[in-house]
């Protein structure tokens, strides 16, 4: 077993008030030509916009605080609608129009916005019934039909009646017996008026469970840190915001889910004035087609530069990364907290041309979202992708969580800041040519972050893992050591460092660090397993048996642990025990070659154990 890589998954989310949702209007109003000017009516002019862009959130059961489905609904909120659309508070859509188009663009055109005011000026007439388009129909059940697997949060969370926003994490434990491929997940967050947004993250090593006070209780926290067991990062955004209709993944990009994987839902909740319980559910749709394309989430970030003096209005943080190989950019997810005002993401192409990938001039944490490009943006090798975030830590920024303003640095709390930009990219090279093409990118970005910030724990750790996968053990050990120096005694790093020493054949050092990992966290399966294996390789079989037994206690269904325990017993001369465990390994995995070969050898050499 190799050491693990670690990815920091960032989450965010929202408080909402009025949730209108919109896209582009294809119809232009006759009033654009003064000679044809006619009175704006609800049925002819507004209903098409409202049905398309507002009603998806403003209907019963959805996030919008009131319905916008009829003339009466619109009339009783007419000035409100004119006001919030004119101020671009509604529909909630952060990106400025730019070179690249996004799916589900909610941006209203100036002509559309003008119609709402003119309707009021014209007397808010209903218009001819024959002009009224069919009312939209919404599915109150699962959007993609009955899911193959429905999971409910173990326990509800009570959102308090008042106070500031709340961040809560729910852990779902899919009861899988074998690896499955997911083509879609529908997130049903519960009472939608309370949930501003939610992120679902795959936790392959059950690392989030350690944050629960009791199993199933869930836990507080705005940002999530998830450890991944092997280099197989979850390259998918699983994001929910009001009005979201789940989109199946492209058929060749299904998401892998293994037995024991957890799904963690990080939800941003806003008090409504009354205490209310929410209990989210997720519906999973499986496919039999395994993925053949594997996207990667590349993170640009420069949290180290975040040290914003109180009162500073124009604090800029930048990062730039040169792509070592060509990729298709599928989606983009900017993330900062409350002080950020302006976000700019750009690509500088090898030829010198610069294009804006995303520009948000009025960042609002409450309406953050993942933005998926209508057409993937092709970024050749050598392209420099950059981020430039501007922060306002003055009291003129109403979102400032501190009054009076305080010095703010990077951190996970809502009162801290962040400067992150996630890019979902698909490497444009064949996996069979040079191993997993994501490794090249992952190594390059980790090295970039280490150079940017020698104190970046995750960067050292991830770089070490990539180096180890390439067989560069001395360099790998060096970076694991640097990571360990940043977090002394961390069980995950001790285990990984021990694993690196083991892989490079340095057993005494391996045993030292793996023992430290076991000591730091006795219920850590990986470290018990690795330590058992290290002892076995060092010829210390009784210690090997002790730790492999401990590993099996933690994970009774693990065929590898059973096979190795069988091997350790065999080497220790306890043939009967050895055969029992090898048989158990084959029970768990009939294709386990090592267990079968060892068992055959044992049975041949001692037919009557």
């Amino acid at each position, binding site marked *: 077993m190799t050491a693990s890589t670690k990815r920091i998954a960032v989450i965010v989310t929202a408080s909402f008030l009025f949730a209108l949702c919109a896209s582009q209007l294809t119809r232009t109003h006759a009033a654009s030509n003064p000679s044809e000017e006619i009175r704006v009516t609800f049925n002819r002019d507004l209903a098409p916009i409202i049905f398309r862009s507002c009603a998806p959130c403003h209907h019963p059961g959805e996030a919008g605080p009131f319905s916008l489905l009829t003339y009466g609904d619109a009339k*009783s909120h007419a000035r409100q609608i004119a006001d919030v659309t004119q101020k671009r508070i509604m529909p909630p859509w952060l990106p400025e129009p730019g070179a690249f188009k996004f799916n589900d663009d909610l941006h209203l055109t100036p002509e559309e916005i003008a119609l709402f005011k003119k309707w009021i000026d014209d007397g808010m007439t209903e218009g001819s019934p024959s002009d009224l388009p069919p009312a939209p129909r919404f599915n109150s059940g699962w959007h993609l039909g009955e899911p193959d697997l429905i999971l409910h949060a173990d326990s509800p969370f009570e959102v308090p009646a008042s106070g500031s926003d709340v961040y809560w994490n729910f852990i779902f434990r899919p009861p899988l017996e074998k690896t499955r491929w997911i083509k879609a997940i529908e997130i049903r967050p519960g009472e939608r008026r309370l949930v501003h947004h939610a992120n679902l993250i795959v936790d392959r090593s059950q690392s989030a469970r350690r944050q629960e006070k009791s199993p199933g209780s869930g836990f507080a926290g705005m940002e999530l840190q998830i450890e991944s067991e092997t280099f197989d990062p979850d390259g998918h955004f699983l994001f929910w915001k009001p009005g979201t209709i789940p989109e199946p993944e492209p058929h060749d990009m299904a998401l892998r889910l293994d037995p024991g994987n957890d799904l963690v839902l990080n939800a941003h909740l806003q008090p409504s*004035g009354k205490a209310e319980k929410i209990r989210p559910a997720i519906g999973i749709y499986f496919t039999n087609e395994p993925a053949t394309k594997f996207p990667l989430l590349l993170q640009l970030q420069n949290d180290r530069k975040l040290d914003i003096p109180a009162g500073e209005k124009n604090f800029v943080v930048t990062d730039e990364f040169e792509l070592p190989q060509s990729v298709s950019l599928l989606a983009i997810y900017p993330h900062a907290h409350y002080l950020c005002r302006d976000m700019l993401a750009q690509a500088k192409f090898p030829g010198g041309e610069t294009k804006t990938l995303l520009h948000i001039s009025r960042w609002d944490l409450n309406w953050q979202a993942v933005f998926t490009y209508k057409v993937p943006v092709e970024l050749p090798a050598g392209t420099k992708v950059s981020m430039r975030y501007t922060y306002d830590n003055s009291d003129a920024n109403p979102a400032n969580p501190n009054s009076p303003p305080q010095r703010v640095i990077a951190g996970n709390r*809502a009162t801290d800041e962040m400067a992150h930009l996630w890019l979902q990219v698909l490497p444009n090279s064949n996996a069979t040519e040079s191993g997993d093409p994501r490794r090249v990118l992952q190594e390059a970005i980790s090295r970039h972050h280490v150079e940017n910030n020698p104190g970046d724990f995750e960067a050292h750790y991830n770089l070490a893992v990539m180096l180890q996968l390439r067989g560069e053990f001395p360099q790998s050990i060096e970076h694991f050591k640097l990571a360990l120096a940043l977090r002394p005694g961390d069980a995950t790093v001790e285990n990984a460092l021990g694993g690196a020493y083991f892989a490079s054949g340095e057993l005494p050092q391996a045993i030292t660090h793996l023992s430290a990992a076991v000591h730091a966290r006795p219920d850590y399966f990986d470290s018990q397993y690795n330590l058992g294996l290290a002892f076995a390789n060092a010829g210390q079989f009784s210690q090997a048996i002790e730790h492999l037994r401990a590993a099996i206690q933690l994970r009774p269904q693990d065929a590898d642990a059973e096979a190795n325990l069988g091997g350790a017993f065999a080497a220790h001369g306890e043939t009967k025990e050895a055969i029992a465990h090898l048989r158990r390994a084959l029970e768990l995995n009939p294709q386990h070659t090592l267990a079968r070969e060892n068992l055959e050898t044992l049975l041949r050499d001692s037919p009557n154990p």
Partner: protein
Amino acid sequence: MFSANNCLARIRFLPVLFGAVFLSLACVSFASAQSGLSIEGKSVDPIKASQGKIAVLIFVRTDCPISNRYAPTLQKLSADFQANAKFWLVYPDKRTTPQQITEHLRQFHYSISALRDPAHSLAKFVSATITPEAAVFSAQGKLLYHGRIDNLYVDAGRARSAATTHELKDAIESAAFGKTRMPAFTPSVGCYISDLE
């Protein structure tokens, strides 16, 4: 003839005079400029019904998320100042039924008296234009303050993590104890009452 004319002139004058008096009386019993309707449908003048206390009117609607989010704040202010002030929730949406108001009070744990204001008499009386908006009257019925509750909302959809000014609380304290200055009118953020006409 002259006397008849004089008499006519007086007779003409009297109905006008009487009319004015009659209308004024009618207001007290049916639809005064400063009355709303209780859940039971009775006309209530909240200033008189506050019985010597400061009267605090809060304009709300059941489907305004901003006024709803203020429920715990309003409930607390009403409890904190119960010795000096009487709070009233005023619902200006004529489509909102007494049953819906009762349900709204239950859901948001309000123990504040509610009034319907279907003709917007109270809203016009205090020039309220937004839900939520507060109006504070002295025990003598003088309008001392109207405007926002606090500065939690900067705009519809944009709230601070916590309010940093508290105009309604300041207004009540000023009216009750006279030690602090009465805040000036400050516009509220929320839903337009004029949308309900």
